[in-house]
């Protein structure tokens, strides 16, 4: 891997350091880059204790933009969980603010811890969120340990029994503020340098592209209809006015 990337580039150096930091699986999370692409990782997290997800083990992809860590990572869940749509890019933001509030001093670990913490929060109709019943989520959680990733294998075997380094107080207060939401595909096309693009686009890509075009189409349609309506009213008033005017002049 080291030969393929410019290790002088701070972003590459950073990802390699993160790969080393996260190399050892913990009982709560683990993550590692794909063998042929430092900018795509796979992760596994355990559902948070005391919630509908506590029996669940969830697997997914992390896509790093070429500007990482200046721009946030994107997360895609692959294991059905009843909280997030699968195969849909979600990104983290601070609740109530735009995702630009991502901070370069956060890391993939921050993103994973935040994801775990965010799972039990209400979906509230945000893009990419699902509002399944507790029973459905529990069923999915039980089923999840049998889930197999084509690249990583049986996900229940990926986590270890080692306790993760607990987040500091400071970190915890940040984690509690992070929210996740789905994003519009077309708005997030990566720019430039193809080297950072995933080389072998997996099966999930096609599903990703299809989301959310319908709503924006409906919005456009509504706008066109409103414009037509206003135009029609205008013509109607104009003609009435003319009719009145000519009636006046005839008198």
């Amino acid at each position, binding site marked *: 891997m080291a030969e393929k990337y410019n290790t002088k580039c701070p972003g590459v150096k950073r990802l390699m350091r993160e790969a080393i930091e996260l190399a050892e699986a913990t009982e709560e999370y683990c993550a590692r880059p794909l063998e042929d692409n430092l900018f795509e990782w796979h992760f596994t997290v355990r559902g948070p204790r005391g919630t509908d997800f506590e029996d669940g083990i969830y697997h997914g992809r992390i896509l790093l933009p070429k*500007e990482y860590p200046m721009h946030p990572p994107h997360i895609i869940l692959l294991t059905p969980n009843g909280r997030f749509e699968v195969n849909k890019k979600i990104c983290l933001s601070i609740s109530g603010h735009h995702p*630009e509030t*991502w901070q370069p001093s956060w890391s993939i670990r921050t993103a994973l811890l935040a994801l775990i913490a965010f799972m039990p929060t*209400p979906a509230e*109709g945000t893009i990419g969120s699902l509002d399944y019943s507790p029973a459905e989520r529990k069923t999915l959680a039980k089923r999840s340990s049998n889930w197999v990733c084509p690249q990583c294998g049986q996900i229940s075997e990926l986590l270890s029994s080692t306790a993760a380094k607990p987040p500091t107080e400071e*970190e915890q207060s940040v984690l509690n503020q992070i929210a996740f939401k789905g994003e519009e595909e077309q708005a997030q096309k990566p720019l430039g340098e193809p080297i950072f693009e995933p080389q072998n686009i997996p099966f999930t890509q096609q599903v990703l592209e299809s989301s959310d075009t319908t709503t924006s189409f409906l919005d456009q349609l509504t706008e066109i209809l409103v414009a037509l309506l206003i135009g029609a009213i205008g013509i109607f008033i104009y003609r009435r006015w003319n009719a009145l005017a000519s009636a006046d002049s005839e008198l």
Partner: protein
Amino acid sequence: MADDAPSSSTFAGNSVDSSINQDELIMKQQREIEQEISETIPLVGDLESLQTLEKEYNEDPVYMLKVKDLSAKYKYIRRTRPDGNCFFRAFSYAYLEHLVTDKQEYEKFYEIAKNSKEILVALGFPQFTVEDFYETFMEVVQRVGEHAGGTLDELGAIRQELHDKFNKQGYSDYIVVYLRLITSGQLQTEHDFYQNFIEGSRTVTEFCRQEVEPMYKESDHIHIIALSNALKVGVRVRYMDRGEGSQVMAHDFPEGAKPLVHLLYRPGHYDILYA
């Protein structure tokens, strides 16, 4: 904008979707503008004569007077990319460029820079990532130190190296991030003092998380005061706006300090000035 949106889940139908679409559209447009800027304007440009500014304001009598005044005080300008990071980028470039010819100031700065990481970690910043930014920052600082006060050829070479590094997005942004962290650290260390500068009900910590640490967030007075105090570096900002008078007002940070860095401020943007 998103702050005002009702959080009620009963209306989670079309209304929420369309507001999100609006948000996405605005963000998409913003990204297109950002991309255009990044394709046309270098992170830090070459030295230009101040006459280029005169041309820019040919038809604008208010600005023309001020450019004339500026020309009497400075000879050159170096433009930076208007990406919200311009203050940090302009400041660090101008200061490191100054250190190339000022070994004594370099020694003073090196000590401050070296101790900065411990301060940040003690404040609760994640050690792992702070170290990452610190190392890249110090790598650039040390390169300057190795050549500071050297022969003319050496100075030319290190200036060129500095210019190249500042125009490599990776290095350049890493330096900006580290200065943002130092600024945030200073604000939090002296939070009682800086709280007075923050409008509204935000705490210093909240302000730092929302306006200082994230990239692309524009700098205000409070950022400049905090950074110049943290690094003990004098900065003179020349203000050029539509305000009355024909003079470009100067503001020194920290007050009374000898300015080593001169910046030109035009609403929303900082460039570097040279006498």
